[in-house]
């Protein structure tokens, strides 16, 4: 089986090429840094088996951040048969830099110039044949989104016509390289001695360490090499990468012609508005509100339908179970415990998820997210954090665990930790519907003013943003002291979102996955709650015992024991919090006929809920411990229990404090 790797600058469509080659569905999005770890897949073409890796995007092989290191290490030190360097046709020049760097390591390279359709739209002509002649390796033009050129790329996988150009540096660099090569040849094993020489001259610590551990030999401990290097360094100043940048510029001039020099104008016109002083930030908030409104407005009806469907189904399941002669105890457990929680998780959570997630993905596809980071960077800088944290927060809307691992796009380890520790203040796809449901059933009513719901929800989200900033600032001043580091952020061209594909993919890849997890958790949680409610000690159910134990504490922070238990049981999946609350109330005796969402409000009110309770639950669902998946991800990403614990303590403490304050203020009023 042949091994292939896809390399390339961030956001050039590597994942799209990967998907069209393998038929898999890696998540794609129009912003740099989408892929943070190697994804791999297998495919067959012309009866040959291939294994292909999708490397995270990197601008050069001198890496800065962890995700770039993943790509660099693969290209430099792994075994493979072919590297496909994917380039962006719209800004080929910068992409060529990586092509040239890769060619210094291996000659087995195919250049895939992707986004040819975008270039065509912008009237940029690229002479691929000439490019192939200059580079000395196969060059294929593709528009991976429309699958154009993919067959040609497949046909070239067995092409071994590699005769890559020798990249000549300035004379003094070449002299220096030639001095070193003879001493390196017998020591660098399969690595290319010329490449090792270049990297000794252009010393970069992390890469050097990797070379040392790969060779199991410290080249600089070799006296001759060390002396030669000292001699070289004394005799000149070597700007290796400058040479490559200039070479790319020269090649680009030969292969590209622009019919319309001002091809950026249309995007810039839009950006002038989306990033303007007056409209920039209001527009972002408005966009968020529109998405919320569509979600709230759109979720009610299917929710009600699902509710009816599940109650309808319940009768038949009950009949079936009775037919099987199962003991009554077990039937109750299955129906009143497991089935009820399960059906509520689906009925209440599925519709908002199914609407919100695709809508948000569309924004992502369009290329709007980097603009948010651009607009907000100054605020992050004030908090001594990185503007790219805005991107990780956006990912958090989908799933906090994804937001946490996405923090790899942040170079500085300090700023990355800040992003990881604060990600939970963005409500994820599991908590977000919890909030919507709560607002709908408690504050507004099903047919109530949905605009008001949007306002409430937006306030909660903005509170989350505010907390993110405050906590980031606080961390930067205390345990994560430091000054903001420098960064560059690319604003990619807007691309027309592939609406149909986005909807289908987000339903199949994300929503069903998340829902599946919730269902898996809901089954034991439902059974547990039912058992607690129906096993009695001294004529009082276990649930009552526990609740009355937790009640005083819960009351202090505006909630009650049932709510606290539900949050704890919701640790593996926040989606089940509201269903568990309702179920627990119903099983403790206040039985209410529930036919629709409307009746849910009655259950809550009958159990002592006031406006204060609802606000406290809202706030607490915004700030409490991250779900188990997120905690595991934090542990994995930070490699430390200390930081994981802190990621749990910080939001929980803030949540408790806020709820305590709200409760006391409302008592006072």
């Amino acid at each position: 089986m042949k091994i292939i790797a896809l390399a390339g600058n961030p956001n050039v469509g590597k994942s799209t090429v990967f998907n069209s080659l393998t038929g898999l569905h890696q998540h794609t999005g129009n912003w740099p840094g989408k892929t943070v770890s190697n994804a791999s897949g297998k495919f067959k073409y012309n009866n040959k088996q291939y294994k292909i890796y999708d490397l995270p995007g990197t601008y050069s092989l001198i890496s800065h951040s962890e995700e770039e290191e993943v790509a660099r290490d693969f290209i430099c030190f792994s075994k493979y048969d072919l590297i496909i360097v994917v380039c962006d046709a719209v800004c080929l020049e910068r992409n060529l830099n990586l092509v040239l760097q890769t060619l210094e390591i291996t000659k087995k390279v195919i250049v895939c110039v992707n986004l040819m359709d975008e270039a065509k739209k912008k009237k940029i002509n690229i002479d691929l044949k000439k490019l192939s002649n200059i580079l000395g390796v196969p060059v294929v033009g593709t528009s991976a989104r429309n699958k154009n050129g993919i067959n040609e790329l497949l046909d070239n996988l067995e092409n071994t016509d590699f005769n890559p150009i020798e990249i000549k540096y300035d004379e003094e660099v070449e002299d220096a390289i030639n001095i070193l090569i003879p001493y390196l040849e017998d020591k660098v094993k399969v690595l290319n001695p010329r490449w090792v020489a270049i990297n000794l001259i252009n010393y970069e610590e992390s890469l050097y360490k990797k070379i040392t551990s790969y060779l199991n030999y410290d080249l600089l401990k070799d006296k001759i090499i060390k002396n030669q290097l000292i001699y070289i360094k004394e005799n000149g100043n070597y700007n290796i990468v400058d040479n490559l940048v200039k070479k790319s510029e020269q090649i680009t001039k030969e292969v590209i012609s622009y019919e319309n020099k001002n091809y950026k104008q249309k995007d810039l016109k839009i950006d002038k508005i989306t990033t303007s002083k007056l409209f920039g930030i209001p527009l972002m908030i408005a966009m968020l509100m529109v998405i919320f409104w569509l979600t709230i407005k759109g979720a009610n009806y299917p929710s009600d339908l699902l509710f009816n469907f599940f109650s309808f189904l319940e009768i038949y399941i009950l009949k079936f179970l009775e037919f099987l002669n199962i003991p009554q105890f077990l039937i109750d457990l299955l129906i009143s415990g497991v089935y009820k929680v399960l059906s509520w998780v689906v009925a209440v959570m599925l519709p908002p998820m199914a609407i919100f997630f695709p809508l948000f993905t569309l924004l992502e596809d369009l290329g709007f997210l980097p603009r948010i980071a651009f607009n907000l960077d100054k605020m992050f800088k004030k908090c001594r954090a990185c503007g790219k944290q805005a991107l990780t927060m956006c990912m958090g809307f989908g799933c906090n665990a994804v937001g946490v691992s996405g923090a790899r796009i942040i170079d500085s380890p300090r700023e990355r930790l800040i992003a990881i520790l604060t990600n939970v203040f963005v409500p994820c796809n599991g908590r977000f519907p919890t909030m919507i449901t709560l607002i709908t059933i408690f504050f507004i009513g099903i047919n109530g003013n949905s605009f008001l719901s949007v306002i409430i929800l937006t306030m909660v989200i903005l509170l989350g943003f505010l907390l993110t900033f405050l906590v980031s600032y606080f961390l930067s001043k205390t345990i994560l002291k430091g000054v903001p580091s420098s960064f560059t952020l690319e604003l990619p061209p807007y691309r027309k979102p592939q609406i149909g594909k986005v909807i289908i993919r987000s339903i199949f890849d994300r929503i069903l996955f998340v829902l599946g997890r919730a269902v898996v958790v809901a089954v034991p949680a439902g059974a547990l709650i039912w058992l607690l409610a129906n096993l009695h000690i001294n004529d009082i159910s276990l649930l009552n015992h526990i609740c009355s134990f937790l009640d005083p504490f819960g009351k202090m922070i505006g909630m009650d024991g049932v709510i606290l238990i539900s949050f704890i049981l919701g640790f593996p999946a926040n989606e089940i919090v509201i269903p568990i609350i309702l179920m627990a109330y119903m099983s403790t005796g206040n039985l209410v006929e529930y036919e629709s969402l409307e009746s849910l409000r009655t259950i809550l009110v009958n159990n002592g809920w006031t406006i204060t309770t609802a606000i406290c639950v809202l706030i607490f669902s915004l700030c409490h411990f991250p779900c188990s998946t997120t905690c595991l991800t934090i542990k994995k990403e930070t490699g430390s229990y200390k930081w994981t614990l802190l990621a749990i303590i910080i939001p929980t403490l803030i949540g408790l404090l806020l709820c305590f304050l709200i409760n006391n203020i409302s008592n006072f009023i």
Partner: protein
Amino acid sequence: MYLCDMEIGDKAIIKKIVAKDNIKRRLLDIGLIEGTNVECVLKSPFNDPIAYLIRGAIIAIRKEDCNKIEVDLI
């Protein structure tokens, strides 16, 4: 004149980069070296960062970094 002093629409050539290693390499990555043409295209709502057209891509850079890059207007 420095990169951060450019107004929207200004075009310039990079004259000198007096930045520390880390950011210098970042700038190298995006092809910003001495002699590169840049155009100032966008300012964020708080005037920082500022976005430039560099070798066909729009790149945002923070003020602290821009003011270490000398340019000549063209």
